[in-house]
């Protein structure tokens, strides 16, 4: 009996691992930045290049940092969700315009709508590196103390927005 059960058991264990692996997304690498302070930055604003925006300016509120670019195709995919979210006035969204050209970025926002309280221009991608960005778009939820609480890699999906991001934002706003 054991002769048949043992190989079957081994097979089932291996199969369970493989099935699990089938549904994992290798693009989603756990970020070491979760529960760490958001890296500092001070960049010029996209709309008003003579003004800058720094991390310290945003302390004391829960905010989203959305990394986007006009050359990024998946950004178009998530953009309507961001515009919608901005309309609800639930949480301010700040944009990190990653390695983009100013004209192209401004045109993109004009065409698809601007959900951002402000966007800052990360021309050489250095701030992006500090935030561990490797697959635009990415979205961070940052709490009142400037701690990163959540990171979405790739476009925001309605599921992630409604089941993770919005509940988390509400919880953080109350604390």
């Amino acid at each position: 009996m054991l002769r048949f059960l043992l190989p079957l058991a081994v097979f089932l264990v291996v199969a369970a691992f493989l099935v699990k692996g089938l549904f994992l997304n290798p693009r989603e690498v756990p970020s070491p930045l979760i529960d760490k302070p958001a890296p500092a930055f001070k960049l010029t604003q996209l709309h008003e290049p003579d003004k800058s925006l720094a991390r310290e300016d945003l302390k004391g509120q829960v905010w989203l940092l959305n990394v986007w670019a006009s050359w990024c195709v998946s950004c178009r995919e998530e953009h309507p969700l961001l515009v919608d979210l901005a309309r609800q006035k639930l949480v301010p969204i700040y944009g990190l315009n990653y390695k983009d050209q100013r004209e192209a970025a401004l045109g993109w926002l004009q065409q698809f709508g601007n959900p951002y309280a402000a966007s800052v221009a990360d021309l050489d991608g250095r701030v992006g590196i500090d935030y561990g960005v490797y697959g635009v778009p990415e979205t961070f939820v940052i709490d009142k103390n400037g701690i990163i609480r959540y990171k979405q890699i790739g476009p925001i999906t309605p599921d992630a927005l409604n089941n993770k991001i919005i509940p988390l934002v509400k919880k953080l706003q109350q604390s």
Partner: protein
Amino acid sequence: MIRLIAAIVFCMLPFTAAAKEAEPLAEDPVVEQRLNRLAEELRCLVCQNESLAGSRAELANDLRREVRDLIKAGKTDREIVDYLVERYGDFVRYRPPVRPSTFLLWFGPFLLLGGGAAALVFYLGKRRSRLQEQPLTDEDRRRAESLLGGGGK
């Protein structure tokens, strides 16, 4: 015919003198050498099966630039790897660190090897006990002889 064979043999000769690597453009060869060595050990997160040295993704370019700056700033290799791990996690390293969460990764293969060896020993032991020699009785011997001898010359 001979010429054909010669041609085929010639084609099979190993050509070791392949293309040389491109000369680094930057001014300091020492820095570039360290950069290349480090970049071989680091993963490009955009094309995850390529090293930072081999990848042509834009992010890999940026990260190489960042590593180059850190080398020039006099950071040690360890500090540079830590800098990247802080941002991208252990995944950026091709050699994952040994720690409780990676024990299975590091020692799992040996565990499997040990398990396999134990199973083999167990199986061979059981097989031997099943194959115990049974000495021939006199009766058997007589029967065998009569069968063999009965064939006649």
